[in-house]
């Protein structure tokens, strides 16, 4: 069994955990970040991609609104390459109460969210697909943020500053020495090998799974109510600006343009299991109908895929009352105060937009526990790739392609050249095409892997020196992973596309008869 030592063990490779690890590395702590799966495979990679301006919260939750706008402005400085500066609109549809607009304006003024009321014909000039019957509109500094790019940048930053990132390492036990948590036993989920981590401090940033992790430290009552929400990506950028309904936040009231698609979200269904990613038919219908309110024709537009993410909503079983204590802003649990357990903190809930703030507060708390005041640097230090301060734009890949078109494309939809794919395969050392998807957006375009799954498997087989069985498993696994998100929404042109993909994989390649065969 291998052993490593660290100042800090961070459990959970979402934005929060990676943010904590990045913050701690910048303060000089030797940090190990672990996740049972790939980075951003949990809630962080399963949201709609909104960089909040705070507008959504100005009426209902002013404190969250202020946090959002402050963090929004910081991330635009330190993580620019992961952000598209789309801007945002709040529009009053005929179904919405017009007077909410006044409350909204007042809320923005009170919380510091920059806002400007604009004429509806100006909105329609900028966004011709928006419902022409809108009656009021307000512009705010929303944006879209690419969670995978963000997580990759955080991981690079962590390793560049002496930390390490262990993906596909599941915590199977937390160790206690008296009152203190002293580390963990990890299992590599790909090889089943176990590893011991001895850590001076441990931070539980496992989001919806935080109750399961804290229970391993013998701590009871950290109850996370997983709130499952679905999102649907449409095949085009139906809008180029984030469009919100100007009303009390509800289901399906936001469309986010991100990369080559636009995403509508979301629903909120309490579920028992944070790994429950069910996509119910009525939720799909609800989202498509809600989209129709904002963009007429949405219902019949081409839907690419749907997915479900699980928000971690914290309910402290030790606190009085019940649902009243469920909060959407983040929760930092000081287990020394709460449970008399030393060298262990839990950070959960919150929003991706405020991940940096959550990380700062958490590492500050650790410093207090250790009596070791070291200042936070994440406000000023740009993430790798964002040093130039330039935003991502939707034409970035096309521009790269046009400047050098000699490298053959493996995935035409997402314009992924072969050399880039091969480099990602070598860097990640993975045998899982879904890891490559999160790194490069492989298979995320209109054909949903129809052509690139075969090509990438052949290249992975060659580059990774895989045997046939491992390559076949990669192909079948990726087909299944793509199918998981397409079948709940398949209709119209996307069903047609999917049947063409079936033609290739079943009709032409006969993958359903990989690999076993007996000669007759």
């Amino acid at each position, binding site marked *: 069994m291998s052993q490593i030592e660290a100042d800090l063990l961070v459990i959970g490779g979402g934005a929060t955990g990676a943010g904590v690890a990045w913050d701690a590395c910048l303060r000089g702590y030797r940090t190990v970040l672990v996740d049972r799966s790939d980075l951003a495979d949990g809630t962080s990679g399963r949201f709609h991609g909104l960089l909040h301006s705070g507008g959504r919260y100005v009426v209902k939750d002013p404190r969250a609104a202020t946090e959002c706008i402050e963090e929004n402005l910081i991330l635009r400085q330190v993580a620019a390459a992961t952000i598209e500066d789309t801007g945002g609109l709040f529009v009053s549809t005929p179904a919405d109460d017009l007077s909410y607009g006044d409350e909204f304006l007042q809320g923005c003024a009170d919380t510091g969210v920059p806002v400007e009321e604009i004429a509806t014909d100006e909105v329609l000039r900028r966004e011709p697909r928006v419902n022409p019957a809108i009656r009021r509109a307000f512009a705010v500094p929303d944006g879209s943020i690419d969670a995978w790019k963000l997580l990759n940048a955080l991981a690079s930053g962590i390793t560049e500053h002496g930390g390490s990132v262990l993906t596909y390492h599941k915590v199977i036990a937390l160790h206690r020495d008296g009152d203190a948590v002293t580390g963990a036993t990890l299992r590599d989920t790909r090889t089943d090998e176990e590893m011991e981590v001895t850590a001076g401090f441990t931070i539980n940033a496992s989001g919806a799974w935080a109750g399961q992790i804290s229970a391993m430290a013998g701590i009871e009552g950290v109850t996370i109510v997983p709130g499952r929400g679905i999102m649907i990506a449409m095949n085009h950028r139906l809008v180029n600006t984030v469009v919100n309904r100007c009303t009390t936040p509800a289901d399906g009231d936001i469309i986010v343009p991100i990369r080559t698609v636009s995403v509508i979200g979301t629903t909120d269904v309490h579920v028992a299991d944070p790994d429950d990613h069910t996509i119910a038919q009525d939720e799909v219908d609800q989202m498509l109908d809600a989209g129709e309110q904002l963009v007429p024709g949405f219902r019949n537009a081409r839907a690419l895929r749907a997915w479900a993410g699980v928000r971690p909503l914290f309910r402290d079983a030790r606190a009085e009352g019940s649902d009243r204590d469920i909060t959407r802003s983040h929760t930092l649990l000081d287990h020394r105060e709460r449970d008399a357990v030393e060298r262990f903190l839990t950070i959960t809930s919150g929003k991706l937009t405020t991940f940096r703030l959550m990380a700062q507060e958490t590492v500050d708390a650790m410093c207090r526990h250790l009596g070791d005041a070291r200042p936070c640097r994440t406000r000023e230090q740009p993430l790798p790739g964002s040093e130039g301060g330039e935003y991502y734009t939707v034409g970035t890949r096309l521009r790269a392609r046009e400047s050098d078109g000699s490298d053959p494309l493996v995935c035409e939809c997402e314009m992924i050249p072969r050399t880039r794919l091969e480099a990602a395969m070598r860097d990640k050392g993975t045998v899982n095409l879904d890891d490559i998807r999160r790194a490069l957006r492989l298979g995320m375009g209109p054909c949903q892997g129809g*052509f690139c799954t075969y090509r990438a498997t052949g290249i992975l087989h060659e580059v990774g020196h895989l045997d046939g069985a491992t390559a076949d498993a990669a192909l079948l696994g990726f*087909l299944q992973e793509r*199918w998981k998100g397409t079948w709940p929404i398949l209709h*119209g042109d996307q069903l047609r596309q999917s049947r063409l993909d079936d*033609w290739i994989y079943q009709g*032409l390649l*006969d993958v359903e008869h*990989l*690999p076993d*065969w007996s000669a007759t």
Partner: protein
Amino acid sequence: MKPDVIVVGGGMSGLAAGVGLAEAGASVLVLAKGAGSLQLAPGTIDLLGYAGERVASPLSAITALAERDPGHPYALLGADVVADAARWLTSRMADGPLAPYRYVGSPEENMLLPTAIGVPRPSALVPETMGAGDLRQGGRMVVVGFRGMKDFHPALIADNLTRATGGAMEVRATQIDPPPALDGEPGTMRLARALGRPGAAEALATRLATVARDDEVLALPAVLSIGDPHGVWETLQRSAGRPVCEIPTLPPSVPGLRLFDTLRTLLRRAGGRLVTGSYVVGFKGSGDRMEALRVHVSGGERIYATRWVVLATGGVSSGGLALDADWRMRETALGLDVAGVPAPRQPRFSPRYLDDHPLGRAGVAADRDLRPLDARGQRRWENVLVVGAALGGAEPWREKSGEGIALASGHRAAQLILGAERSVSDSAATKVAQPIA
């Protein structure tokens, strides 16, 4: 123009019907929305590859399937029609513009040909350029790829074939440089065009001769030219001194294109017309007779009166069937009822990709004369025949039956129409077509 028959759709089923009718003297108009789905297909004629287990003998398995599953298109057609259609296609290829390029094999038994990922796949009739790949014979094979070709991965094919045959075959892989004349990325169509140029086959043969070992079959991606596959293939075999076979690649498919070109040429040679870029936008019917189709053609709409319509628009992948956002399925040309569609609140698909899907067999229901049935099981139109993937009741890609159903139903539709016209002319009514017996 008033054609006797309008065939809607330019894929396998539509062209089989159109060629059969035109060669028998009927006036035929084939409306094709695009280039036809044959260019997506591997170019093999798979009659029935799997019926639960892998099928060794398609005709007897089709007979058993027809008894077991009366809703399957093969139950409407029967094994004799399938055998007849297979013979017909073989004979038409031999008279086609690419002859002596021909199809080999038999509806009595399936060959097992390597796919581009190295699965032994059952096929009944295949281009002669693929026949040497039959894995039932065992032995040794070398899979030869072109460096940089992204739609063909020889090492993976070889790995899988070796495992798949349980060691009965020894398969290795190698890569060679693409032909020097090729300008740009070595894609399927570029390679096929380059290999059709004078001297290209000889140059490739020289390189292959250095690659092949004594007892190996040489397997290449299916790019041995569009216009002269027999000549290129013969040159390679002669010069390399080894059997050569093609392996079908991802779309666009060169062997599919050859089949399309052959059938289109035969249609035109027999006086039929193929209008691409056209599709049905409406129709005029009276009672159970379809009288005219309103058709989008380039430049606007036209109305074609007709005696017969053969609906060969294909399934979902070809746009012949479509599932709307309210989760209801339509037949897109004539608005026929579609059978086998789960109700809007019922599951349409299974969560596991390779499981059976409730929507998988949806399509138009027809009787044994290929006339479409409405939701109550009644004939909707007397002079409309439905063929190919628009027919419900099959899982063509899982079964490896798509081309077989398309070919046999298209061929059958031609026979049924010719038979009906014959009986009309026998009873001394107006003669429109002059069927050849």
